[in-house]
């Protein structure tokens, strides 16, 4: 059996760190496969990932070529060569693979089939402007889609089955690719096909049980669930209007989860039942890397209840440090195996203004800094419609890139990175209910566009596209919630606290791995979350929230669960500069801290004050722009890796004070001894650099 755990995949209880890279066999000359794989091994990679394109293997309906006609399509032979070379494999058979293929990995006939196409809110096709051809989104609610996919799986799964580890090389299978409505993230774009609407109605029925329950909430007079048409644009005016729209947003999450679950089950039924099945969400790149964009329509915690592990892909430039930090911290906070299924190694040609190798170095170190435990480099060997890989399609080496990837793998191996764990006693949480509200109140629909959305908006809902209405609340929660998360994110960073990111779909058991939860709270909060927060506090944790204490549940019905447990008799005022800034309530073994102005003040100092004595690791730093994380070696407590990042375009002389003074410090990338002055780590950080310091302490 192969099982994912925090630090890697375990094959028969033996840990296999997952540091791999993508190679596309069908795009290379088969005579070169061996040579190319040797180059991959030469960089220290032990794992190869590959898509398996339905589009390429299906010659015509029900006729497939696996090397009989074109030798480059012999996936069986390719996997056998991987086995001979001792390489493990992550197989990615789709059905959707994108892969910069003309038809996104599907046979063209599938895309052209109206029965399989998704429909927009205006009942039209929903076209993604991709290169080299625009394509219509498909409906993953269509029965015909699953029937067609089953035929593909019937053909490909038996080939993969032969190569399952431990006898074979295959240690994991990815189901589909970057499933997110074909980049039609905008909630009022898709999927309004008949089959999707039917599933939406079933979703409502399961949620509300009776039509009366739904009518009571929606203030409607439906007789049957089957007559409910989903919202096709946002037209809400008051909070009582909102559940109808928010349910559509929640349904869109379920749609993705259920589709992936069904595809994964289809794989398992075809013999892939004892290898991990995983998925890669697309990189949610809002402007500057939106802090809240990792939730709806994605739902990593829920999807991991169906699949073995789930990650987000990352293709960033150095200027987007906070984006990388956000995504990695979220995956680390939520996933059972923090893995980046596609991690930048070159880019596609229509990635505009591509970065340099220095960008890839900075992004790689950022990901390691914030706790990633596995990744697959995409693409480690170049091919048609890709540029900037360390190995060219004819097997030549690009020295600078080859050397860089080799160095990364050397360090990971030499220092046993899998044995280190990032310290983060704090979880900063996105409240999925508020994120759903934000998505629900989008005013402008627009399709996905790989060139650039014509109107210039981010595909993720944000302040440029959403309603500013208060809906009867004191403030427009859909806008203020992002500000709250953002100020907490920056406040914690400035104060020297590292944290994980999570969201309110996480189980209470997962939350209990942390000492402190920080989240925005407004007039409403789901009953479940109110109860979870109380349990977390009673169990000894600290909950920091604000600017409102919830008095309503997610249906906007009165619910004072949290508030009524905050007893004035167990309340302590929190002051800063002589002013009251919040209240700390003792609850069980822990506490709830309420900050009424969480959204208005820069909360860094307030958070710093509150977190004193909360057991959260803090570093002292002479410049708030520096970011620091500490990774403890779980096997050797005296060894730490301390990452120090300068995510700015200025040189910074850093002085870092840790909780104890190391006896020696070495920067491991440059293999350089670092000065300890007055007990502090002293180092010069050039623009956009990250230093990885191995700190040895007394007794280590």
């Amino acid at each position, binding site marked *: 059996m192969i099982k994912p755990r925090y630090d890697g995949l375990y094959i028969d209880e033996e840990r296999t760190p997952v540091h791999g890279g993508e190679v596309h066999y069908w795009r290379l000359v088969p005579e070169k496969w061996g040579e190319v794989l040797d180059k991959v091994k030469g960089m220290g990679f032990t794992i190869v990932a590959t898509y398996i394109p339905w589009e390429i293997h299906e010659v015509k309906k029900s006729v497939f070529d696996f090397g009989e006609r074109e030798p480059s399509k012999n996936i069986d032979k390719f996997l056998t060569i991987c086995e001979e070379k001792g390489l493990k494999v992550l197989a990615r058979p789709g059905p959707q693979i994108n892969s910069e293929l*003309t038809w996104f990995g599907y046979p*063209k006939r599938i*895309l*052209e089939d109206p029965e399989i196409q998704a429909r*927009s*809110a*205006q009942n*039209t*096709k*929903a*076209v993604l*402007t991709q*290169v*080299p*051809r*625009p*394509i*219509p989104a498909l409906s993953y609610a269509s029965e015909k889609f699953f029937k067609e996919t089953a035929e593909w799986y019937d053909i490909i799964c038996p080939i993969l089955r032969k190569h399952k580890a431990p006898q074979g090389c295959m240690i994991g299978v990815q189901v589909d690719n970057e499933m997110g409505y074909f980049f039609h993230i905008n909630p009022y774009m898709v999927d309004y096909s008949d089959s999707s609407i039917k599933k939406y109605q079933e979703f409502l029925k399961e949620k509300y049980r009776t039509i009366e329950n739904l009518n009571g909430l929606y203030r409607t007079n439906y007789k049957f669930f089957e007559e409910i048409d989903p919202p096709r*644009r946002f037209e809400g005016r008051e909070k009582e209007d909102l559940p109808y729209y928010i349910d559509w947003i929640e349904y869109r999450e379920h749609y993705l989860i259920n589709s992936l679950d069904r595809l994964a089950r289809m794989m398992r039924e075809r013999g892939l039942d004892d290898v991990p099945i995983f998925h890669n969400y697309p990189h949610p790149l809002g*402007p500057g890397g939106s802090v809240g964009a990792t939730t709806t329509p994605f739902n990593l915690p829920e999807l991991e209840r169906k699949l073995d592990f789930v990650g987000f892909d990352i293709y960033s430039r150095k200027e987007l440090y906070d984006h990388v930090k956000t995504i990695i911290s979220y995956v680390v906070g939520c996933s059972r195996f923090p893995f980046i299924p596609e991690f930048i190694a*070159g*880019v596609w*040609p229509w990635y*505009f*203004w*591509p970065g*340099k190798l220095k960008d890839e170095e900075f992004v790689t170190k950022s990901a390691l800094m914030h706790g990633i435990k596995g990744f697959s480099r995409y693409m480690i060997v*170049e*091919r*048609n*419609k890709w*540029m*900037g890989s360390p190995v*060219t*399609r004819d097997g030549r080496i690009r020295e600078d890139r080859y050397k860089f990837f080799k160095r990364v793998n050397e360090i990971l191996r030499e220092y046993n990175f899998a044995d280190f764990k990032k310290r983060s006693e704090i979880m900063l949480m996105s409240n999925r209910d508020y994120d759903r509200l934000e998505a629900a109140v989008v*005013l*402008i*629909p*627009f*399709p996905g566009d790989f*060139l*650039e*959305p*014509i*109107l*210039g908006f981010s595909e993720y809902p944000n*302040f*440029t*596209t959403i*309603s*500013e209405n208060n809906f009867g609340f004191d403030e427009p929660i859909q806008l203020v919630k992002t500000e709250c998360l953002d100020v907490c994110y920056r406040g914690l960073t400035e104060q020297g606290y590292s944290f994980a990111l999570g969201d309110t779909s996480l189980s209470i058991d997962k939350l209990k791995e942390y000492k402190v939860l920080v989240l925005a709270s407004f007039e409403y909060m789901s009953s479940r979350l109110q109860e979870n927060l109380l349990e977390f506090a009673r169990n000894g944790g600290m909950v920091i929230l604000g600017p409102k204490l919830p008095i309503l549940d997610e249906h906007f019905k009165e619910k004072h669960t949290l508030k009524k447990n905050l007893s004035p008799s167990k309340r302590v005022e929190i002051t800063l500069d002589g002013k009251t800034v919040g209240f700390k309530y003792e609850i069980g073994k822990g506490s709830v801290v309420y900050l009424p102005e969480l959204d208005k003040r820069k909360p860094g100092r307030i958070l710093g004050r509150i977190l004193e004595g909360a057991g959260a690791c803090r570093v002292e730093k002479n410049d708030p722009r520096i970011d620091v994380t500490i990774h403890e070696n779980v096997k050797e407590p005296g060894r730490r890796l301390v990452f120090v990042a300068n995510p700015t375009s200025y040189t910074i002389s850093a002085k870092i004070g840790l909780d104890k003074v190391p006896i020696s410090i070495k920067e491991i990338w440059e293999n350089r001894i670092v000065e300890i002055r007055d007990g502090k780590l002293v180092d010069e950080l050039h623009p956009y650099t990250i230093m990885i310091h191995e700190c040895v302490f007394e007794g280590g």
Partner: protein
Amino acid sequence: MLHENPLMIDIDVDQWRNLHERFLKSVKGRKRIIVIHEDGEILKFIHADKEDIIKTIDKVIDPRRDAKKVYEDNMSKTDLVLMLERKAVERFFAEIQDSWSAEEDLDEYVYRMYSKLDEYKDEIVTHPGPARENLGLRWRLTISYPQVKKLVQRYIPPNSVVVVGVFENSNSIWGSLVLGFDEKRKIKLITTIDKSQVTRNWKEEYKQVVRWVEEKFWKCSLGLFMDRCDMETVLESDSKLEALKDLIEEGKLIAYPVPEVLQQQLG
């Protein structure tokens, strides 16, 4: 014009980045005020960089006039006002998406999308300038897509390659483009000149570049080689043909080979 499955291979990232920086511009990079309204009722009125703005209209009555007014009120912090009527935006995208066909080239589809903005000039409004000239990703060329298509049809023989090389310091390729056209003059190949082909002085090595193109790909029908500063001269010129001719005459730009039909134009 873009083939259904072009080869986009061996592209030099540094050259590619230089081309993007010089030739592409994005509406995202502009300081924008966004006004979203429905039948005149304003639902959204913000600056995309969260700058404070002056809001002297509370209803959209004449979108083009109102966009101009918003722009003039906020000129110091605004490059562009984008004024969108919700229902029109919904219709715009619905119409363009439903016209999709698997057979249509990407550039044709995108061009139709941008052209369609003209049909919505009172509803999808930008100021200064019409939406069609402001929105999305654009190239910084004073030549339109139909003109480019026309030039290709007129001057580029089928099944041939065009290579353009732009150099810095004689031996360094700043940017290049190698475009292969198939029998229908669809772009079937996109790449850049391998930097190993120019090591001393491009004026002595351009023939080697053409040989490399022909050995690696197909027959080269047109090659244009120049220094970066001369490329700028051509780009800034109102009469590009005249500018090309002048530079050729001065020996600053080398055109080799040149299709016969173009040879006549270049003199």
